[in-house]
């Protein structure tokens, strides 16, 4: 009898059956061995890293705020880039969002707009920044255009999805009055997507503040440029001050964006 009733409780397997669970765990282990062996990570260097981390920490403390003008200038530039890019993104994402909505755009336009979104979303902001730096030279203009490009793609995608989710009743009702395409968008679509779009735009402003801190790594302006420069000069205590500044800026931006979006709902 005791063979039928197990005496100890075992948690149920997460992946359906126990065999499947063992297979998943085995595959994960095999992957781990394979990936670590191909990466040829040097264990000695990894261990030496812990000592060097303490060393780096010692050089970062205490953070040096004596050059705060430089810090404030960089942060201001980042914020300005983020603001201007979000605004440009909102304006330019409207046509893209409408073009990428299946229920409004003709088929070829829809496919072209979706293709642009897929390709545009693939590349990290830093990659896009390199190209804008090549085209417009070093400085915040390249950063602004990078963030604006990324915002247009992101906001366009979100807007398209919101438009595809609108209720078709109002659209049919407005269409039945003989409205043209512009009137259809203004009277049937805009009232349904406005609140969500404002929320997405504020979320994107927050994301742009985050990304404005890194496009400077490739010379596209903002606080990232200051950070990158101080790091390459081994100016670690100033770098620590910049890092604290970035954390404060990003945390504040996220908190504000959460607060506004809660108010909107």
């Amino acid at each position: 009898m005791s063979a039928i009733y197990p005496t100890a409780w075992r948690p149920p397997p997460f992946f359906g059956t126990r065999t499947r669970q063992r297979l998943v765990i085995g595959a994960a282990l095999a992957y781990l061995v394979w990936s670590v062996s191909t990466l040829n990570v040097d264990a000695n260097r990894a261990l030496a890293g812990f000592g060097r981390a303490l060393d780096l920490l010692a050089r970062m403390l205490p953070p040096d705020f004596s050059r705060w003008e430089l810090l404030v200038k960089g942060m201001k530039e980042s914020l300005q880039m983020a603001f201007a890019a979000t605004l440009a993104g909102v304006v330019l994402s409207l046509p893209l969002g409408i073009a990428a909505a299946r229920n409004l755009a003709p088929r070829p336009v829809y496919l072209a707009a979706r293709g642009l979104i897929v390709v545009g979303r693939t590349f990290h902001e830093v990659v896009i920044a390199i190209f804008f730096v090549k085209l417009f030279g070093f400085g915040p203009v390249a950063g602004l255009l990078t963030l604006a490009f990324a915002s247009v793609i992101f906001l366009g995608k979100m807007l398209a999805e919101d438009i595809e989710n609108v209720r078709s009743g109002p659209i049919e009702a407005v269409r039945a009055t003989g409205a043209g395409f512009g009137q259809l968008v203004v009277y049937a679509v805009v009232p349904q997507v406005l609140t969500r779009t404002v929320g997405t735009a504020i979320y994107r402003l927050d994301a742009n503040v985050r990304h404005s801190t890194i496009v400077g790594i490739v010379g596209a302006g903002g606080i990232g440029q200051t950070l990158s420069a101080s790091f390459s000069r081994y100016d670690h205590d100033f770098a620590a001050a910049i890092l604290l500044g970035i954390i404060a800026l990003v945390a504040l931006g996220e908190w504000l964006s959460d607060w506004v979006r809660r108010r909107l709902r």
Partner: protein
Amino acid sequence: MSAAAGKRHPGLWRRHSPREIVIGWLWVLAVAAASVWSVSALDIEWLFFQDAHEQAADLASRMWPPRWSYLPQIIAPMIETIHIATLGTAIAVVLSLPLAFLAARNTTANGFTWAVGRGLLVASRSVNTVIWGLLFVAIFGPGPLAGIAAVAARSVGFLAKLVAEAIEEAGRGPIEAIESTGAGTLQVYLVGILPQVLPVLIGTTVYRWDINVRESSVLGFVGAGGIGIYLFASINQFAWQQVLVVLIAILAIVVASEAISAYIRARIS
């Protein structure tokens, strides 16, 4: 009489009250002022915009046709990029669980530990993967190890925040049931709470992995391994035909990882 009635009952329907209209316009004004301030202070050199389209056309002509003979050289870095993302995410999952329990109001020990947990979350999330890469290259030297550490450092906060929210929303029933069997705190966490938050953990992990593949593609710019090094080197050599090949390769792995991630998340929910 009729004038008073007219005041109380306006002849024209308006959607917003006068107060709402004023507040709405104040918001518009504030946004306009902020944008004017940001655009004017950036010192935009509009001259650069005049020949931008020619520059872009020139760049495009230099990139075409892609030099496919470069592709075999970047297969290994492409795999390395995916490894960095996967191993970094795996480390982040392991570290995020204790952090999530520390940062959730109902499982943390006291106010101080909660503040420590929340502080770690904010620090991890606020610093971008690329900046973490900069830090870890200074610690581990250039190479994929720094990249893995950077991905892990950024993802820990992301995963732990969402899991901590799931822990705070976990149902009381299972927790009380496990407690009534005389289980210790750790047993309650592992048997009562963990199974409830596991779907959230797995969903966010897969989602984060897909973001991390994209992030790993640029970690090479700060020397933290992956395909970014080859992209950066090709750009610096003005080898634009190679750049196009690398960009196509990145497009392929990012789109593939997004598709895999979307498939798994659709299966879970």
